[in-house]
């Protein structure tokens, strides 16, 4: 096996550093210390990077993937038909669902005849890869929410439909 010593250089940019003996001023250390202190002093007057989090939130990037939301259509009906493609595509196996059949009188709630009676995502398993939104044929799930908040118990990280389904249209206005 060839060791690292005999490895061929990937680029010819390798530079062997020559360590010169320090001159008198360098050995004093004081000029270098004053230089460093000048640098830190200048930083006192620079713009602070702090974002005051609970009051101010940093803007997310355009392709940010956060908390999932189950979408409704333009009439406020849930789009999800419980086909299970999201659960199938999920590499972390975070999604489970139980399908239900739409009854008479529920047409204003669910768009298709089949709907997700139970839809749960385990936020501790989810890796926010976004494969579920790519897999969804009904454009029913999007990872367009904020950061998943912290909590104390593991069971509280299993988000059901109460947390995932977006608010009806008239509630949003």
């Amino acid at each position: 096996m060839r060791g690292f010593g005999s490895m061929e250089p990937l680029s010819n940019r390798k530079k062997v550093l020559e360590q010169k003996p320090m001159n008198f001023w360098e050995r004093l250390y004081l000029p270098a210390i004053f230089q460093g202190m000048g640098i830190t002093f200048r930083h006192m007057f620079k713009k602070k990077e702090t974002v005051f989090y609970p009051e101010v939130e940093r803007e997310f990037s355009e392709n940010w993937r956060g908390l999932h939301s189950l979408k409704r259509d333009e009439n406020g009906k849930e789009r999800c038909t419980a086909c299970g493609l999201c659960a199938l595509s999920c590499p972390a196996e975070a999604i489970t669902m139980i399908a239900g059949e739409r009854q008479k009188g529920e047409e204003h709630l669910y768009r298709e005849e089949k709907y997700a009676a139970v839809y749960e995502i385990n936020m501790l398993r989810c890796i926010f890869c976004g494969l579920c939104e790519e897999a969804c044929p009904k454009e029913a799930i999007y990872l367009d929410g904020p950061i998943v908040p912290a909590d104390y118990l593991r069971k509280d990280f299993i988000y059901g439909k109460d947390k995932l389904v977006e608010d009806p249209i008239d509630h949003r206005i």
Partner: protein
Amino acid sequence: MELAFIIEKFILITVIFMVSLGVAAYSTLAERKIAGYLQDRVGPNRAGPGGMFQPLADGLKMFFKEEIIPTDSSAALFILGPSLALLTACIGSAVIPWGESIVIADRVVSLQVTDVNVGVLYIFGVVSLGVYGIMIGGWASNNKFSLMGAVRAASQSISYEIPMGLSIIALLMATNTLSMKEIAEQQHGANWNILYQPLGFLIFLVCSFAETNRTPFDLPECETELVGGYHTEYSGFKMGAFMFAEYLNMFLASTVMSTLYFGGYNYPGMDWVNGITGPLFGPLIGMGVLFLKIFVFIFFFMWVRWTVPRFRYDQLMNLGWKVLIPLAIANIVITGIVITIYDKL
């Protein structure tokens, strides 16, 4: 001794004690704020306006935390350690002249608790006692890291007391007195000792960093090597006492440096100001100037802490024994020659 004298001294001592504690408490906040600002952050700002009540919150936290005395430690010494550190940090300010004497109702009140004629030696004694708190605490913890920290603290403070003392000797040769009051009086106006002893001041400054266990010489509590150093086993109020002692020491070191080298309460144009303000407020303005100098030094301590990385232990010893002591001796020789020539002229 008359009663008024006792009351006067009692009030003075109480005020100085309170002020030192207040300054030390707010130094903890200032440290974190300055650390923040030097690192493009803002530091603590949640407790009260601008973080004003942070020291109170920290103090309360320390007070209500569980205090653990390790089973294998010697409990009495374990408690004695932080108490001694705090005590020695508090008593040093007794010989500091905080200002010229003020006149209240035809009574001359000295703004110095006691004018010991060996005030400089007293401060040295107190400062070198301070390391005993750390040593005893570290030893009593019965923990390898604590012991290492204590050993480092002891050898460091012994090594750096020598150049510190030698730099003071040169100063004493120039001032001809050991009394803090007289040293302060000699620097009337802008006739500060820093003009005569620049090298001595530099040595004193470096040594006071080492004596107060501040970065770049905070080897005794070096987190990267020794967990917490001498206070690894400490928690709650006793831990707070050690922390507090460090800040009190920093306050004392700043005060001593201001008084010995930077004129204490003296400032250029003080006679003119005193003429206008009278014998009561003039000295108080001088006292304000002294505190301004102290705060500048405290800021300097913190500024250095957040700029210069920690020394390695052998570098620390090299600097102390091979650089500072020869420099301090050279400083004495040069001072002696200059004084002799000056006297002959």
